[in-house]
């Protein structure tokens, strides 16, 4: 008697399409978290630099917690405890919230470093021309400090993109989760992990190339 039923089937072109869609979800959740987290992180970095007592006492330890606790623990805790506080977020929403805070905690220190890199004498020179505090931040500190810490920021962004794989533990079907589903069905982990890895690379590589070109154009 021949076996008439198989639980497994081969990897096919539809699966490739399935992974592609998952890669778009990875890109989307990363893009959102990195953008929001960067804006928030720059603000935090500024607050840390200005060293207002409140920021040093409350913000700095809080950011340390988010930087130090493994992301996977933060995700699971937030996803399960948010409903208790009346926040009913789907896996995507929870993922964005935690990834954004996590990104902002990392970017905060990068941003503070950027502001420190500009240095008081240069800022004094700007202020001596009648340039206001906010104009100084906008026209002097942001462009100069931003360039100084841009490579560090790219590192954070690429890291967060890869870390977004952890949102899969909440059931969000991004690249890693999608490959796990396919591996279960096809029993071809080697092939599928290579394809998934290639997708991650395809997402990261343009960013690092673009960043490298940007840095080159700044170097004059």
């Amino acid at each position, binding site marked *: 008697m021949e076996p008439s039923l198989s639980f497994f089937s081969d990897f096919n072109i539809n699966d490739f399409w399935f992974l592609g869609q998952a890669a778009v979800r990875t890109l989307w959740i990363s893009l959102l978290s990195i953008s929001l987290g960067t804006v928030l992180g720059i603000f935090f970095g500024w607050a840390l630099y200005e060293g207002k007592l409140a920021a040093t006492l409350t913000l700095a330890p809080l950011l340390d917690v988010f930087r130090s606790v493994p992301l996977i623990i933060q995700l699971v805790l937030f996803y399960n405890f948010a409903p208790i506080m009346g926040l009913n977020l789907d896996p995507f929403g929870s993922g964005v919230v935690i990834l954004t805070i996590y990104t902002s905690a990392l970017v905060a220190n990068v941003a503070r470093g950027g502001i420190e890199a500009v240095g008081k*004498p*240069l800022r*004094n*020179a*700007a*202020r*001596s*021309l*009648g*340039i*206001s505090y906010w*104009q100084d931040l906008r*026209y*002097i500190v942001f*462009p*100069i400090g931003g*360039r100084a810490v841009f490579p560090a920021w790219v590192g954070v962004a690429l890291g967060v993109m890869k870390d977004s794989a952890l949102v899969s533990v909440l059931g969000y079907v991004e690249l890693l989760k999608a490959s796990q589903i396919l591996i279960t069905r096809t029993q071809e982990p080697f092939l599928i992990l290579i394809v998934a890895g290639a997708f991650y690379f395809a997402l990261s590589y343009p960013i690092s190339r673009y960043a490298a070109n940007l840095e080159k154009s*700044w170097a*004059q």
Partner: protein
Amino acid sequence: MIQIRDLHKYFGPLHVLKGINLEVKKGEVLSVIGSSGSGKSTLLYCINGLETIQKGDIIVNDIHVHAKQTNLNQVRQKMGMVFQQWNSFPHLTAVENVALAPKIVKGKSKAEARKIALSQLEHVGLLDKVDAYPNALSGGQQQRLAIARALAMEPDYMLFDEATSALDPELVGEVLDTMRLLAEEGMTMICVTHEMSFARDVSDRVAFFHDGVMEEIGSPSQIFGAPQSEHTRKFLAKVR
């Protein structure tokens, strides 16, 4: 006119300026000499409002610089300042360095600001470096750029804080020449300097600072020819 009355400045427990009284009239060139740590640079920072003061008053064009209601950004437009480190904005070309403040502080249009910048670059002899970035300029050129940048705001006063001290010896001349040019054009200048020949030849008055006190002020011939204070004599003997 710049009026300084009984000015006291502390850095923590350190008493840096101990009751300075000084008036600088329109068109006057004042050189401030003295050894490092005598408080002469701090004086400039206080005049510009970059440092707070603890006692006394600084009045520029009848405006009390350190009064609470004073808009420092407005006062500073009237006082150009040139620092020991030239502090060019590294991400902007020479012309953009000079045009920035007229554009964002005075609200000039891009074309107007560029025109002002070009005329000031010509003024300091940098017209051939208009589109160069600061890292392609020598120290002397960057310092002249800093002077052009300050002049673009059409200040009534120029404050020079050891403008040539950080320069290689062969680059000092071009910056001093630019400062001389300004003096000849009638700019009111306070120059903290270690260049005794500049102080002697260009200034109307020379002030000698020692340990936070203005020990002596007078014409160059009097300060250099017949100094009254013991400290002045010792200082001049050392720098000569």
